C-alpha cells in the first residue's frame, strides 16, 4: 500500500474544489481521457491497444471445428465455481456524506440534521436513515475516501472502473469485471444485470476491453426487455429445436475462424433464453405485498426488491441505480426527500439478505461517484466533493459492524489513512475470494492487473 495519496491534501477551504471544477471539460469522454501515449508506442502494443481501447476486442482464441471455441480467461478460471454474488447499489449524482454516513453535527458545514445512535455502540448516522441505523451492526462504513474526479462524466466511470493505472485500454466496470472473473455461475442467467430508471438494453460500453459480452443487461424501469414473452404461435418445443439448430450452425461456422464475433452472437441468444426461462422474476403480481410495503412502493424500493429477487435467482452481479442525487441546489430538502426512500429500501435489503442466510455469499456495496462539498453554496446546495467522503459495505467477506477512517472536525478532509477507489476494488475482490495481486486479465496476450497496482485492500473492513 502506498502512503498518503498524493492528490489527497488536507484543505480547509474550497479553493481546490473550485479549481477542479474549472478544469472540467464538458466534452471529454472518459474513454478518451484514458488513452495514453503509451498505447501508440511500440509496434506490438499499438494494434492491440488501439482496438481494445474501443472495446473491439481481439480474438483470444481460435475454434478449430471443435465447436467449444469459447474464449476463457487465462486466469481466474477456478473462481467460476464460487457462489459469491454482488449487490452494487449506485447512488448516482453523489450522496452527501454529511446527510448520511458521516454526520458532523454542530460544525461549520454540518447542516441542519441531527445525528442518531445506531445498533453499533458509539457510532452515529444522520437522522435521515433511522432504519439503516438499526442495521449498522451488519455494515462496514469507510469514512476516509479520497478520490480524484469531481465531474460526473469522468467520475462515474472512474469509480466504476476502479481507476487503474493507465495502460491505454478502457477498463471494465466492476460488474463486467466480476462477470468475466466469476462467470454467470450455475444460474446461467446473465452475469451482470443493471436495474435502473429510464431506458434498458444491453450496455456494452461497461465492459471496456473485456468485450461486449461482459456488458450489463439493463432492465430499464425494472421492466423485462422487449420481446421477452414468447408469442403463442411458437411453442416452447419449437423454440428449443430452433435454438439447437442455431447453436449447431454457429459451431460449424466457427471452424477455422476467429471466435469473437460468433461468441458474441451466441452469447446474446443464450442470455435471451436463460432470461426467458426465469421471466417470472419480472412478474410483479408474484411479489408479497408486505415486501412492497417494507421496501417502499417508490421507484428505488421497487428496483431494490427486484434486485433481491434477482439475487435469489442466482444472478452473479446485480447493480441497482438511483438517480437524482446531484443536489447543487436545496441539498437539505433534497436529501430529506431522497434519504428516507433510500433508507427504507436499503435497510430492508440488508435485513432480508440476513434473514435468508445470504449474507455469507452476497457482497453488498453502496456508493456514489463522489461525496458532496462541506461548503454550502448560495443555493443551499452542496457541490461535488471527492476529497473526503464515505461508502458502506456489508455481507460476503466484510467485517460486520465497523467504521473505518475518519474526516476532520469540519469534514473537509480525511484525517486518517485515505483510500482511493483502487483500494476498494482490491477490498471487494478479496471479499469475493479473488486474489487481486495474483489474478490478471489476459487482454489478447497483454496481462493486465484487475485493480490499481499501487493500492491494496482496506484490511480493517475485511472479515
Amino acid at each position, binding site marked *: 500500500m502506498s502512503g498518503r495519496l498524493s492528490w489527497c491534501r488536507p484543505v480547509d477551504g474550497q479553493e481546490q474544489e473550485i479549481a477542479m471544477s474549472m478544469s472540467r471539460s464538458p466534452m471529454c469522454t472518459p474513454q478518451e*481521457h484514458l488513452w495514453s501515449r503509451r498505447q501508440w508506442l511500440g509496434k506490438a502494443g499499438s494494434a492491440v491497444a488501439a482496438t481494445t481501447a474501443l472495446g473491439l476486442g481481439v480474438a483470444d482464441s481460435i475454434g478449430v471445428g471443435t465447436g467449444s471455441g469459447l474464449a476463457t480467461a487465462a486466469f481466474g478460471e477456478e473462481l467460476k465455481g464460487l457462489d459469491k454474488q454482488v449487490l452494487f447499489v449506485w447512488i448516482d449524482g453523489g450522496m452527501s456524506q454529511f446527510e448520511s454516513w458521516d454526520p458532523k453535527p454542530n460544525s461549520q458545514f454540518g447542516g441542519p440534521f441531527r445525528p442518531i445512535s445506531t445498533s453499533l455502540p458509539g457510532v452515529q448516522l444522520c437522522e435521515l436513515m433511522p432504519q439503516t441505523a438499526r442495521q449498522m451492526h451488519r455494515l462496514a462504513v469507510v469514512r476516509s475516501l479520497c478520490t480524484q474526479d469531481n465531474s460526473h462524466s469522468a467520475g462515474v466511470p472512474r469509480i466504476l472502473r476502479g481507476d487503474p493505472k493507465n495502460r491505454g485500454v478502457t477498463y471494465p466496470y466492476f460488474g463486467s469485471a466480476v462477470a468475466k472473473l466469476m462467470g454467470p455461475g450455475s444460474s446461467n442467467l446473465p452475469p451482470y444485470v443493471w436495474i435502473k430508471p429510464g431506458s434498458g438494453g444491453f450496455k456494452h460500453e461497461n465492459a471496456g476491453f473485456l468485450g461486449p459480452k461482459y456488458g450489463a443487461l439493463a432492465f430499464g424501469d425494472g421492466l423485462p426487455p422487449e420481446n421477452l414473452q414468447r408469442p403463442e404461435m411458437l411453442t416452447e418445443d419449437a423454440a428449443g429445436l*430452433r435454438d439447437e439448430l442455431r447453436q449447431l450452425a454457429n459451431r460449424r461456422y466457427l471452424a477455422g475462424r476467429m471466435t469473437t464475433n460468433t461468441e458474441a452472437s451466441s452469447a446474446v441468444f443464450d442470455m*435471451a433464453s436463460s432470461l426467458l426461462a426465469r421471466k417470472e422474476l419480472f412478474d410483479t403480481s408474484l411479489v408479497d405485498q408486505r415486501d412492497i410495503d417494507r421496501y417502499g412502493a417508490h421507484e428505488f424500493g421497487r428496483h431494490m426488491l427486484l434486485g433481491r429477487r434477482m439475487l435469489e435467482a442466482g444472478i452473479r452481479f446485480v447493480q441497482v441505480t438511483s438517480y437524482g442525487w446531484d443536489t447543487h441546489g436545496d441539498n437539505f430538502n433534497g436529501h430529506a426527500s431522497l434519504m428516507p426512500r433510500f433508507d427504507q429500501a436499503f435497510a430492508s435489503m440488508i435485513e432480508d439478505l440476513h434473514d435468508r442466510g445470504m449474507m455469507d455469499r452476497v457482497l453488498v456495496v453502496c456508493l456514489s461517484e463522489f461525496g458532496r462539498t462541506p461548503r454550502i453554496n448560495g443555493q443551499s446546495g452542496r457541490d461535488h466533493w471527492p476529497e473526503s467522503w464515505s461508502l458502506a459495505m456489508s455481507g460476503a467477506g466484510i467485517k460486520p459492524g465497523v467504521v473505518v477512517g475518519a474526516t476532520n472536525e469540519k469534514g473537509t478532509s480525511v484525517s486518517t489513512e485515505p483510500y482511493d477507489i483502487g483500494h476498494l476494488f482490491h477490498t471487494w475482490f478479496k471479499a469475493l475470494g479473488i486474489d487481486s495481486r495474483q489474478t490478471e486479465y489476459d487482454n489478447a496476450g497483454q496481462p493486465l492487473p484487475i485493480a490499481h497496482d499501487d493500492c491494496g485492500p482496506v484490511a480493517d473492513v475485511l472479515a
Partner: protein
Amino acid sequence: MFRHGMFLLMACLWPVWSVCAAEGDRPLWERVDALILAKSDGELAARGTDAEFLRRVTLDLAGRIPTTDEVRDFLADAADKRVRKIDRLLASPEYAARMRDVWHVVLMERLGDHPEWLSFLEQAFRENRPWDQTVRQILDPQESDESLRGAAFFWTKRLENYGQNPVDYPALTRDVGRLFLGVDLQCAQCHDHLFVDTYHQADFQGLSAFVAQTFLRTDVKYPAVGEKPVGSKIEFTSVFTKVSGSTGPRLPGGMEVEVPSLVKGEEFEVPPDKATKFPGRPKFRPLEILAKQVTANEQTNFDRNAVNRIWFSLMGRGLVHPLDLHHPDNPPSHPELLELLTKEFAGHGRDVRWLIRELMLSETYQRSGRWAGARVQSGGKVPAESSYRVAIERPLSSEQLLASVVLATGEPELSLLVLSPRDKESKAYTQELERFRKAFSNIARDPEIEFRPSVKGALFLMHDAEVLTWFQPSRSQTVSRLVPLSDEQLADELYLTVLSRLPDDDERKTVQEFLQAEPEQRAVRVGHLVWSLVASAEFALNH
C-alpha cells in the same frame, strides 16, 4: 515462417512488381496486394470461394444477400466472372442506394433521416459525382437547386435543439473534423489534447469558428442552414494553462481566414426579409470557405480520410484505426498503401466507384475469412486484423439485414420490393425497416464500426410476432418452395437461399435427420431450419 502458400503467392506476384518499371502502369489493386504482402508477418488465408465472394460483394454493392438464382448462376459461370460481377453490380441502381445507406449512416450516425437528404446522396452516387464535389455540396448547401438542397440536412439535424438543451455546437465542430478530416478534436475543446500532441485547442476553436454562426432556418420547409454575420474572432482560454487566444475560421494546420470588418447594415449580400422571414445571406460566409478549404487539393487529410473510410467499409478495419484519430502517434498499419490510395484517389478525380472497383479486384478483398488449419500449422497465432491476412468479418447494417432476411425467408410482400431501390421507398418497406433499425442499429451518435449483437436483437428474431410469421409455411415462399423437394435437394436449396452457398455433407445430414425425425411436420420443420440459419452468426456477418 514462409510456408508453401506464401511462396506460391510471392512467386505469382514477384515478377509483376519487381520487373515492371513504371509503377503507374500497374492496376491499383495489384499494388494494393503487393503492399499488403510486403508487410505481412505470416501466411495469408487462401482466396475465398466463389460463393464467399458473391455474398460479400453483393452485400457490399447491393446491400443484400444474392438471390438463389444469382448464387446458382454465379457458381456455374465461367472465367472472369468475378470482375464481371463487380462491374454489373456497380452499374446497377442498387449500387447508388447501397452507397446512400452506407454514407447516410457514416455521416448522420443514426441521428435521423430526411427524404431530400437521402435522395441527394443517392443521386450523387448514381451520377458517380466526384467525392469532393459531393462534400462541397454538403458543407455549403445550395438551396437554389432542388436536387441538392437536401444536403443541408447534415447541418440542420445537428442544429435542432431539444427542449431546453442548447444546440450542441461543440459536437457539430467535432463531427466536421471527424467525418471529413479524420481528426477527433473533442478533447481539445478546452485545452490542448492530453495525449495527441498535434491536436491543439486552437485547432478545435479554429474549426468551430467555421460553424459557430450557423443556425437552423425555419422560414422554409426543406432543410436549410442559415449563417449570421460574423464580426469577430472566437476567444478561448485553456482550462489548464489559463493561456488565452483568439482565432478566426481556420482548419487544423491551415491558415486563419481573416474576418472582414463590415459596416453595420452592409453585412448582407442578400438582406433579411421580414415579410418572408428570410434571415438574409451574409457577404462573408464561413461555410462557403469551409467547403472550399476542406476539399482543396492541398488538403490531403480530406482524401486520406475518404479513402481510409472507403477501405474500412470494404475491408473491416481502417488503415488508420480508429477512423477519426489520424495523427502521428497513431500511424497507419500500411503507410505507403494509404499514401498510394490517397494520391490515386485524388489523381482519379475522387472517383468513388473506381476506387471501390479497384479495391474489390484485389486479393486482399477477395481473401477467405476462414483461417483453416492455421492453429495446427503455426502454433495458433492469430493474425492481427491490421495485417489483412484473413478477411475480417463485418456486421450487417439494419438495412442489409432486413433485405437479406426478406430474401432468405421469401416473405411474400416485401420480397416483391426488395430488389428495386424505388420499391424499397414504399411505406410497407420503410415501416419494416424502422422496426429493424430499432432492434439492430446502434443508438444515435454511436458509429457503427464493430459487430455488436444485442439481447434486444436476439429477442426480436426469436419472438417478434410479425417476423415469426415470415418463417411459417403459410407465409414463407422459401419454405413452400423447399418442402416438396427431396431431402438432399432441399438441403442444397436451403443453404443456397439463406447462406448463399452449398451445404457440406454434415450439414446435409443434419437437414435430413431433422426432417425425418418428424415427417408429418415437414413444412414446420423447414421453417425451423430457415430460422436457425437466419439467426446464425454466419448470416449476421459479412464474412
